[in-house]
């Protein structure tokens, strides 16, 4: 299923640009904020670890890092047409999608989930349920978000804009006001997983573990299947159009 050559090319492509530095910025902000808050001793009872790692970490840092990484494993290649060289070989399209998805998910886990863990450890002062829960939720989110964003990269050339609209409008704005939207929100899946271990009401998780895992798995599978279908039908425009 996984193709080593595709993975190697993808990694080279992702880290070959200066843009790779940007991966590290949002997680860095999260850690700095956590350290600053810890040092400034905010009032107890404010439940700030849950707020910061939930409302900020899972709502902003995780999806945005996943967006930057998920759209760069495939988006640029499709945009400038160099994907043709990959597709003009007998490599299975599903293999291409799954390999790129895996690379993106692993990178996001490294650049977002691990910093979340570090921040959670700092915030809660130790490796307790909170930190483990946050880490698990972030791992789940890394996977589901990337499946979604890889699919969006194949479906449209404006993947970043669509991804931003989803994160900013659907998840943050609607998710806070329309309860039905929470069922279709990757943030809620991640929070659901996190909360099942951490049991912290400040995380504002709306779904239980079973719902989160089932919906998350469904979204991931559907996204990857759609992406594979679309990639199999990849078209080059002729010069007449």
């Amino acid at each position, binding site marked *: 299923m996984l*193709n*080593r*050559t*595709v993975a*190697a*090319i993808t990694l*080279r*492509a992702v880290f*070959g640009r200066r843009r790779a530095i940007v991966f590290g910025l949002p997680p860095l902000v999260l850690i700095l904020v956590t350290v600053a808050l810890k040092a400034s001793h905010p009032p107890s009872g404010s439940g700030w670890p849950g707020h910061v790692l939930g409302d900020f970490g899972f709502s902003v840092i995780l999806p945005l890092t996943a967006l930057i990484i998920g759209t760069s494993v495939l988006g640029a290649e499709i945009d*400038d*047409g*160099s994907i*043709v*060289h*990959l*597709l*003009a*070989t*007998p*490599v*299975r*399209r599903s293999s291409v999608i799954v390999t790129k998805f895996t690379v993106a998910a692993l990178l996001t886990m490294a650049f977002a989930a691990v910093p979340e863990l570090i921040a959670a450890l700092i915030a809660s002062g130790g490796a307790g349920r909170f930190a483990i829960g946050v880490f698990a939720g972030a791992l789940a989110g890394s996977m589901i978000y990337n499946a979604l964003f890889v699919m969006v990269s194949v479906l449209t050339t404006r993947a970043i804009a669509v991804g931003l609209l989803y994160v900013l409008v659907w998840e943050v704005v609607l998710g806070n006001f329309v309860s039905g939207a929470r069922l279709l929100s990757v943030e809620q899946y991640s929070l659901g997983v996190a909360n099942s271990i951490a049991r912290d009401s400040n995380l504002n998780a709306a779904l239980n573990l079973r719902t989160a895992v089932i919906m998350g798995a469904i979204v991931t599978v559907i996204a990857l299947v759609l992406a594979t279908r679309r990639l*199999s*039908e*990849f*078209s*080059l*425009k*002729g*010069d*007449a*159009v």
Partner: protein
Amino acid sequence: MSTAIELQNVSRWYGNVVAVNDVTMMIGPGVTGLLGPNGAGKSTVLHLIAGFLPPSRGTLTVGGKPSWRNPDIYKTVGLVPERDSVYAFLTGAEFVGATARLHKLADPEGATRRAIGIVDMAAAQDRRISTYSKGMRQRIKVAAALVHDPTVLLLDEPFNGMDPRQRLHMMDLLTRLGAEGRTILLSSHILEEVERLAGTIQVIVSGRLAASGDFRAIRRLMTSRPHVFLVRTSDDRLLGSALIGSSAVTGVELTGRGLQVRASDYGAFSREIAGVTRDRGIRLRELLPEDESLESVFAYLIES
């Protein structure tokens, strides 16, 4: 010999724009040129054959199997696309090597070496592609398309950006490959190269197949247009007045370069000209066809 590429009533449209209009053609081994002005649909036809566009109507097969949504076809087909988009961050050797591995070749390193040697890029293979000139990029793309020893090779405007020496080298290469029995299809609007290279041409104008076959034979098929000759003699005016009396001739014109003769019947004219000049004591110095080149064939086809 089985036909490698077969199109039957293939059409492709985008909304209201018909890019390829009811094209039927069969392409066999050897070098075939796909000719046409810009925007005629040559790239579209190539992408259809390469499996990167589905036909809106009609059937298209390569080696007996359709190319759309069929990645296995790339085991025997190599594509050199026109767009100047390669993995610029890889070196030439890495790019061809990666392609070899994606083709699951038994000996990727050997195949890479061979392919790079064929296109004469061994000196630059360890430099990043972003440092290559346009001609070098074309050649490395050809190497990647050849690495798996395909029986069918599709090239979209392969001579773009090449200097004359590189062009000659590429033409040599393509001739050799064609002589080995492979099916080579190249698209171009640079007529001189295709003239020298391709035995058969397929002419696409405005999405339609305007002509196919040997280009000289095509030319002759168009007897409705007069053939034009340029004659230089000792007495052009006298010859002109004599020729206009012949039924094979539709017009004469005295130009600075000689006597331009329009002949409606090529065969009859070429039989008559010697007799007419001898009978009148005119010395025939030079007789040239003015419009045998592909360019004039083209121009006629486009005008019609």
